């Protein structure tokens, strides 16, 4: 089986969502000039789209699904509802995106699966949206932008994870997000390059939070993917977290195992971007250090451009059987 764990569907403009919004919302958009959550971190950078790519289903078929011969591809839509402060707009747009994903993508292409967009600033409302759409088993995952206004391990977010586990959905932490707080603990970087390379720190902070807050102790069936975050940073991060936890575990008494054990069991990583060492001979040891090929998932990240993954990473497990095993609703 071949599973592409990350392809992108882009909403060209807010008018695209009109068929999925009720009349008051259409009126609001038309009269306020609101363009949707376009205030996001993805500039027109060269990483945003490979040359000749496009945002239509036809492009996706011709340039990703068909050439790679995928059985399934998981569609992620990075529409930044988390950047919206109005609680009702947030909910309305999330619903509209999910309905659009069904109508324009899932219904039109049987190979596709999708991640549910939620109003993550409002965990109870997010849980209701999950409950609304989860009966459609083509939704296999939740989409949470890795950048958030509070670390996802905090108890505040439990309703989201409770709903995910109840519906056998994986939680996908995805590159990006526009929550309104700085991308780093030291303020706002000047360049997109910094934010692009620095996104790994957001993944580190989220994994750290989820582990030490006991999210996996509260929800032992929870599974998380780190999408478009790379993985070469993982070994030293886990060594350090394990080391610190040994002396400071008293503060987080619900954690019963080393942090690295929780990550090895509950978390998977897509391989784009891989941020690999320049020496290809080093790759084998890196894969061992992260816990073996079982923790890696193939993803094209179409249409974003990173690097072509080396052939050694394109094993049958990484290409599909890991995803089939990890996603309860695939395979």
């Amino acid at each position: 089986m071949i599973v592409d764990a990350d392809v992108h569907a882009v909403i060209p403009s807010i008018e695209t969502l009109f068929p999925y919004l009720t009349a008051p919302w259409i009126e609001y958009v038309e009269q306020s000039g609101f363009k949707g959550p376009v205030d996001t971190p993805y500039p027109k950078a060269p990483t945003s789209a490979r040359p000749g790519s496009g945002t239509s289903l036809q492009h996706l078929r011709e340039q990703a699904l068909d050439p790679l011969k995928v059985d399934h591809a998981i569609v992620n839509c990075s529409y930044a509802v988390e950047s919206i402060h109005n609680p009702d707009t947030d909910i309305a747009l999330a619903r509209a995106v999910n309905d659009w994903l069904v109508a324009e993508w899932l219904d039109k292409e049987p190979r596709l699966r999708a991640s549910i967009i939620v109003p993550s600033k409002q965990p109870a409302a997010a849980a209701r949206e999950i409950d609304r759409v989860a009966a459609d088993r083509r939704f296999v995952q939740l989409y949470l932008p890795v950048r958030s206004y509070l670390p996802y391990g905090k108890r505040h977010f439990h309703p989201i994870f409770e709903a995910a586990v109840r519906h056998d959905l994986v939680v996908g932490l995805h590159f990006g997000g526009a929550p309104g707080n700085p991308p780093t603990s030291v303020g706002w970087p000047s360049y997109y390059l910094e934010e692009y390379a620095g996104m790994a720190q957001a993944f580190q902070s989220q994994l750290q939070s989820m582990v030490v807050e006991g999210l996996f102790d509260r929800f032992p069936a929870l599974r998380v993917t780190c999408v478009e975050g790379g993985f070469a940073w993982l070994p030293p991060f886990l060594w350090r977290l394990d080391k610190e936890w040994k002396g400071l575990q008293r503060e987080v008494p619900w954690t019963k195992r080393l942090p690295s054990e929780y990550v090895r069991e509950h978390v998977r990583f897509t391989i784009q971007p891989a941020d690999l060492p320049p020496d290809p001979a080093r790759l084998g040891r890196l894969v061992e250090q992260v816990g073996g090929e079982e923790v890696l998932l193939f993803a094209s990240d179409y249409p974003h451009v990173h690097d072509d993954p080396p052939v050694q990473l394109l094993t049958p497990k990484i290409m599909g059987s890991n995803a089939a095993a990890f996603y309860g609703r695939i395979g």
Partner: protein
Amino acid sequence: MTIALPEQASTQPVQTALIDCDIHNSLPSEATLDKYLPERWRQHREAFASRAYHGLYYPLASQHAARTDAWPPSGMIPGSDLGFLREQLLDRWGMQYGVLLPLLSAGKQLNLEWGAAIARAVNEWQLAEWLEPEPRLRASIVVPYEAPDLAVAEIERVAKLPGFVQVELESRTHEPLGRRKYWPMYHAAAERGLPMAMHFGAQGGWPITGVGSPSFYVEYHAGQLTAFQDQVISLVTEGVFEQIPDLKFVLIEGGFGWLPPLMWRLDRAYAKLKAEVPHLRRLPSEYIREHMWFTTQPVEEPHEPRDFQVMLDDLAMDDRIMFSTDYPHWDFDAPDAAIPTSVAPELRRKIMAENARALYRL
């Protein structure tokens, strides 16, 4: 049948020369600095004292973040009693030199002039009560780093005094350290042949992660790695080293295991996004290898011991790694136990003393 432990407790000083690149001298009390403060600031201290970013604090795991055996018999707080520090650290381990990094919040004061006053008083205190009585010690110039003009003035003043080997910053600053605001400080340091030294700590007015405020001290402590990574990315990407070729930057108490993957990541990002940063002429990893130094504590503890050498090989910065204990803090690294015995003798010599000797001209 008796089986002895193969590692024997060391009661002798280590045989290799030893330089400790991270020692924390602390003030015995708030009033200690009064002697070094002008009257106007003495009164300010009594009436208003410290005013830093608030609501971002994480209680420590032990008092003063110290080893519980580092309390001097004199009753003073850990790190404040020079006599006990000599006995428990310098003499106990046979140290040739130690570099002081006081963590006294000058840089994070919201009242910038007050921060400058504290910095000046701390530097005077270091000179009088640490450097003058103890020839093995060297000190770091404390500066109000969020007010670069005031910081430059203090660097210019103190660089002329004996025994100060670098300029000290803390890692969580209000802007990423590569930003233009901080450049005057870097110029001032480089012109005087002084490295900049960024040490673990502080709060810069933001949540301590880029994804909001976490709950626990373990996240504050382990999460410092993300601040170190953010700062390295900023310093390199903003072209600080391209602008100031003589600048040296020491990263203290962040470890370094995270650095090789960061170099790989930054180099690949640069390859894709170089059009955004035409002021850079070299690969990010080249700037890092040429301009940066690291201290060892808290020493990395890979799951498999052989990965320590893999990490050193990935880093390829054998001349830039410097041993540190972080005395008197709880995550202290013992000179005879922290660096794995697998490290080759020549590299061990460099780590334990020679790299620091070269950088600080000891």
